[in-house]
């Protein structure tokens, strides 16, 4: 162990063996990667569910507040209430650092849970939901008002109009932004180590601490993130092209 530290410089092969082969340390990387992927996948689903609900409330409010106000009644009050709740959520989540949210989730809200991974899934999901909600909302608002009016003039109600006309167009419009959010999310889970989770980043860092050699493990981790992101970018590009082809 000690002689390579004194040596002028171990070869890359030796470094590789030391960091990944000795003590089966490659398994840490694999476990870390799996944890990162799990957390990202579940957080993504939670984020999309929250995002859809919040965007639905917010855009329903924006589109219907005038007519509902004129009609009066409970419906308007309920919508106002939910809209206010959503706005509060967006403000708090977007106004605080993700690490702080994760720490609060782990040490305060879910302090009884011993396993950090589900906490991280929820925490990142709640965080991502705020950004996804704004992406969806901007997508819905970007669809020309005329599309909406044409559908209403044929006799479609608000929800069918959303379903057949507005949402399909909004989805296509927001796909790049949504993909970007996905990519941000993958990288953001790298702070999971703060609550004792061995994700990909933490795995690399643990190896570094054990072998006192920073180069190999950290570069390996970086390359794995890079590969994931490039893979995703490629897949999203394909999906986008497929959707666009539909229209020409």
């Amino acid at each position, binding site marked *: 162990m000690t002689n390579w530290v004194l040596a002028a410089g171990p070869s890359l092969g030796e470094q590789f063996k030391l960091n990944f082969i000795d003590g089966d340390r490659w398994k840490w990387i694999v476990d870390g990667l799996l944890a990162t992927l799990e957390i990202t996948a579940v957080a993504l689903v939670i984020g999309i569910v929250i995002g859809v609900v919040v965007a639905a409330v917010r855009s329903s409010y924006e589109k219907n507040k005038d007519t509902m106000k004129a009609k009066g009644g409970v419906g308007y009050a309920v919508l106002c209430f939910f809209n206010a709740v959503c706005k509060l959520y967006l403000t708090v989540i977007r106004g605080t650092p993700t690490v702080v949210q994760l720490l609060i989730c782990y040490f305060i809200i879910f302090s009884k849970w011993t396993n950090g991974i589900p906490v991280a899934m929820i925490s990142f999901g709640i965080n991502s939901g705020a950004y996804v909600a704004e992406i969806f909302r901007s997508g819905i608002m970007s669809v020309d008002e*005329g599309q909406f*009016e044409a559908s209403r*003039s044929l006799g479609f109600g608000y929800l069918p109009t959303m379903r057949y006309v507005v949402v399909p167009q909004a989805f296509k419009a927001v796909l790049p932004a949504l993909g970007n959010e996905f990519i941000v999310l993958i990288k953001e889970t790298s702070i999971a180590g703060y609550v004792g989770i061995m994700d990909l980043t933490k795995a690399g860092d643990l190896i570094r601490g054990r072998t006192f050699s920073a180069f190999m493990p950290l570069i390996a981790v970086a390359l794995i993130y890079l590969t994931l992101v490039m893979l995703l970018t490629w897949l999203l590009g394909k999906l986008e092209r497929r959707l666009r082809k539909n229209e020409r």
Partner: protein
Amino acid sequence: MNANDVLLKVVGLKKYYNGGKVKALDGVDCEIRAGEVVVIIGPSGCGKSTFLRSLNLLEMPTAGEIFFEGEKINDPKIDINLHRQKIGMVFQQFNLFNNLNILQNVTLAPTKLLKQTSGEAQKNAMDLLNRVGLADKAQNYPSQLSGGQKQRIAIVRALAMKPDVMLFDEPTSALDPEMVGEVLEVMRELARSGMTMVVVTHEMGFAREVGSRVLFMEDGVIVEENEPNAFFAAPQSQRAKDFLSKVL
């Protein structure tokens, strides 16, 4: 429904914006009978669009009553969607659904709202597309059509619901001059077939030739109404004279 039955009746219609600062409509009374082609003209900003859009409640009146086939439709207890199925509307900006091809644009509402089978709806759509000479565009998307073609499709889309009345808001104003004729021709043919039509237009030739009655609006009220030949030959009010001297 018989000829001369009152289809639409408007009583004391007012529409104010910005808390009463803008009086888009300031007391409009009017009856539209089955088989009529009512042409609405007047200077920009006089309230023509607001009036037309009130007839299917795309604009909620501030005051007054709107009756369609004898039923008051600006009433919170009324399901406006059912009435809108019988009131076709054609917009200045066409507003074809960008996410659907032409055939889907035309068949969406009949299948979802009238519960036609898709075979039935498609056959009906193809008949209508044939009538306007665009059957070969059935599989195209709106982005692939010219303005004049889009507007003819928009008319077909509205007709596919078998409406009792058709509303047109400046259907040719967004078109290049060489495409105006093809759309007016479709409207002329529609009028000949006995369709009840309410048309906001700047096409004075069309108003004169096809209209059965002209409403001249200014400052949110109907200033003058008359049979077209009489109106254009000898307008009664000073304001109508001024307007015609500018546009003819």
